[in-house]
């Protein structure tokens, strides 16, 4: 199995274990050596939504803790280096959509991922910036974690508790259902955190680059990209949706060695 799969599974189980442990600890049980932090405390997006209140007021939005700010900083640092690797390697919601997508690929074969035309797919991708703006503004105005009422990530790890809003569960189920026909629908069209991290693709230090001189135009890189990016026509991939998953590289999909790679430095675009 690929390194990325192991890392994704590891983080998924780790976060699930913390979520379960939090519930157990609240009722007096739990495993002492494992963190029993609440899910809000270990979510780096919490750091983003609380930033405005933190800077202007020195206060945190209800339910968000300082640990979220620390994680936000670490994920940002990682993104500046290699892009939104958080999305491609860590985020359990991204991972589960991919896993459900594998099933979808088996069921629908060639028609998988073809439902939405390329142009519409690109345009729909801008919705997530609308969601990001909405979350930031309403959180700053209400001092409340409004996003949790629609957050499928929170629903994924808390669905068994009374804390989850029905709306969040409905969104989670819709996202998982859609994942059977489109790869990572939440990440592509709705995720405000993915939108935020995606900005790093414009200036990240290590970038996916395609060497046009050795490329045989087989488009393997396009067909494996979980975010629908056309790597085969890019020199440097600066697309806001890239999640640094490395699926398109010569190490994984591209059949020609050293043609699609993650490279640093200021080498000219091919």
């Amino acid at each position: 199995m690929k390194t990325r799969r192991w890392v994704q599974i590891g983080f998924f189980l780790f976060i699930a274990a913390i979520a379960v442990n939090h519930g157990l600890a609240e009722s007096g049980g739990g495993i002492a050596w494992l963190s029993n932090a609440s899910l809000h405390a270990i979510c780096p997006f919490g750091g983003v939504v609380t930033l405005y209140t933190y800077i202007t007021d020195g206060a945190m939005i209800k339910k968000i803790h300082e640990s979220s700010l620390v994680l936000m900083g670490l994920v940002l640092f990682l993104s500046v280096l290699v892009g939104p690797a958080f999305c491609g390697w860590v985020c359990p919601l991204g991972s589960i959509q991919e896993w459900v997508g594998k099933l979808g690929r088996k069921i629908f074969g060639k028609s998988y991922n073809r439902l939405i035309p390329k142009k519409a797919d690109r345009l729909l991708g801008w919705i997530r910036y609308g969601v990001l703006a909405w979350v930031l503004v309403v959180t700053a105005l209400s001092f409340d974690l409004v996003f949790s009422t629609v957050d499928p990530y929170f629903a994924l790890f808390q669905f068994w508790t009374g804390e989850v809003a029905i709306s969040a569960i409905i969104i989670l189920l819709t996202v998982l259902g859609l994942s059977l026909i489109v790869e990572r629908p939440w990440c592509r069209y709705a995720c405000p955190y993915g939108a935020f991290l995606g900005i790093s693709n414009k200036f990240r230090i290590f970038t996916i680059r395609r060497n046009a001189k050795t490329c045989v135009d087989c488009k393997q890189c396009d067909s494996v990209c979980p975010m629908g990016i056309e790597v085969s026509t890019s020199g440097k991939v600066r697309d806001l949706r890239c999640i640094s998953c490395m699926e398109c590289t010569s190490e994984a999909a591209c059949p020609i060695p050293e043609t699609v790679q993650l490279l640093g430095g200021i080498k000219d675009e091919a």
Partner: protein
Amino acid sequence: MKLNQKSIAILVVVILFGGVFVSDTLGLWKTESSKVPVKIQTGEFVGEADPADIRGSYTLSDIANAFPISVEVLAEAFFIEENAAEFQLKRLEETYASEDDFELGTSSVRLFVARYTGLPYERTGEEALFPHTIDFLVKEGKLTLEEAEQIPIMESEIPIVYENENTVEEEHVEPLVKGNTTVADLFGLGLSEEEIVSVIGDYDSKGDLVRDVCNSNEVAFSKAKLTLQDLVEK
């Protein structure tokens, strides 16, 4: 320089776990709520801590840190006799019960802090205070007689049970329905579905907190818990 999948995996793990470890060592890794209320945004008191943002998880010393009020004044106002600095507000609601549409809880503390410090606070109408607390505010010139008359009075002055203390004051009866009681617990106490719904209204899941169900159905929790207690003891 070229990076492969393995290097990304190592970078991800080292940056995230290493960063958490370093921040923990530096005392920056806090997974508990910060106890700093938001600041007032507009008007004469802009920039001051907002009493409306005092939360149930705050202790009396958190309040004393954020507002110009001492732990002693708060402890006296709310009958907290021991270990007052560490007393968490949410335990007020678990301790004092009222049969009316008001309760003595976090909102009462918000009202008291606001009137004591002179900071603005819009009443919701459910904030009860003890008679001696209202008298104290009036005597100190922090409350007009007119407003004092509008504040619901909490007559039952049941002593508080302290954490780490196994002995309970003689006349105190531990309430069956508390802040952390769930709908499932009510079934466990022998109540029927009809009885539960008739008191707290419809609920989504048995794991819901009774308090949350009451809030979303606009039923006074303080009243509901007494009615439920009566039903259990019937």
